[in-house]
């Protein structure tokens, strides 16, 4: 809550809340991300019917059902592909894509690279808990190599995926990291991401309290505001992200690339699609 009154807003966070109650575990960071999303939309004063929330599969991907916006709960790893098509066809909509570290970086890893490269005007929020929570706790691409469990004895031994570095290298125009324990801070990042043209990537560290409570409860004391201001220089951003401790939060890079948006066909009508299908 920003304690300084501002001009009257057209919408309140509750205007973006659906009647469906989240099934996430109590204590899960995703509850906070949902509220941050609602606050961000209120701050942007976007009518719910002008926002589409697209997701894949996983705990975090349940989010479209919990909002009052248009939603598409898609298939595993394909949220960005769906969202790209939607945004190209309906550039008037604000399209927010939600995913998790498994859905977004493993199954959907290739879509992630090319969504960054295409730089379509999307906001991609990845709730990263370094685990596949919905399927009972398998290591994900961002899991630490030495995380030792019965399902991965001795740990995977694999270097974690570094999504921010990969986003930068692939061409994302806005890169930020947040922590679910700071709802207002996450809302601010989502606002900035939506306002920045092109592909905006926001990694939100969102602890899993069921399968990784012991390790991730402490994230609250590890996160810290980025000590260096945001940059628009990819080389500086690369150095910074490569040496990052993983707990820097804030806007880390904001580029100047023009978003990709093909011109609509002048004489196109949805009924034309039917001619493409033969039964």
């Amino acid at each position, binding site marked *: *809550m920003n*304690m300084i009154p501002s001009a009257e807003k057209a919408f309140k966070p509750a205007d973006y809340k659906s009647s469906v*109650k989240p099934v996430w575990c109590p204590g*899960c960071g995703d*509850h906070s991300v949902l509220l941050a999303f609602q606050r961000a939309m209120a701050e942007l004063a976007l009518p719910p019917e002008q926002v589409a929330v697209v997701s894949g599969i996983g705990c975090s991907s349940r989010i479209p059902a919990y909002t009052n916006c248009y939603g598409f709960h898609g298939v595993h790893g394909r949220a960005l592909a769906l969202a790209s098509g939607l945004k190209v066809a309906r550039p008037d909509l604000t399209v927010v894509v939600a995913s998790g570290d498994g859905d977004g970086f493993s199954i959907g890893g290739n879509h992630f690279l090319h969504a960054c490269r295409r730089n379509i005007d999307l906001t991609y929020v990845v709730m990263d808990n370094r685990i596949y929570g919905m399927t*009972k706790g398998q290591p994900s691409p961002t899991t630490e190599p030495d995380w030792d*469990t019965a399902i991965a004895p001795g740990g995977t031994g694999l270097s974690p995926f570094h999504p921010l570095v990969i986003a930068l290298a692939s061409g994302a125009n806005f890169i930020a990291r947040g922590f679910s324990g700071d709802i207002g801070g996450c809302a601010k990042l989502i606002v900035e991401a939506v306002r920045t043209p092109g592909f905006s990537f926001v990694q939100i560290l969102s602890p899993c*309290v069921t*399968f990784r409570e012991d390790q991730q409860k402490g994230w609250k004391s590890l996160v810290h505001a980025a000590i260096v201001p945001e940059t628009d220089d990819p080389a500086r951003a690369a150095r910074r992200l490569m040496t990052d401790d993983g707990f820097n939060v804030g806007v880390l890079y904001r580029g100047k690339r023009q978003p990709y948006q093909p011109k609509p066909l002048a004489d196109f009508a949805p009924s034309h699609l039917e001619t493409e299908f033969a039964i």
Partner: protein
Amino acid sequence: MTNAPQPVEPPKFNSVAEFFAQALAIEVEAAERYTLLADQMEVHNNKEIAAIFRKMASIEGEHRDEIARRAGNALVAGRSATFSWTGPDGPEATDFDQLHYLMTPRQALRLARFNEERAVKYFEAVAEAATDPAIAAFAGEMAEDERNHVVWVDEWLAKFASDDPNWDHDPDPPVHSE
């Protein structure tokens, strides 16, 4: 589950209307947050805790309505004051990470007590820092309201015996991978 509330740095208010608006926003947020917590507990079939949070939501809702009534048509720059929701949570909003699906009534009420204590400290700080006597008076009343809530939560807490040390034992735990 939580440490003692820390002193809160109050913002600077330019008018009584601004302060009314903020006090209202704090209570709106508190009532909405308790409702969300109650929903979570209902979904996970911890009905006793859901009922506690639902009751807290109702109390904060009454406080919200009372402030709205007292504030009347408080205006800022000729318009009703509302808030940007991109800053830190208010003093009466429970952190989501404090919940557990098997939490006990005492734990839930200790969270509520923590919030009420934090609100007392917050409004005391506003009253102390205010240069406008009207803001100081209203902040003092708010602090007194919150102190009464602390007493009330304490009475509620006294109705519950100490927690079982194995309160979080689940005979059918969700963890399969350890």
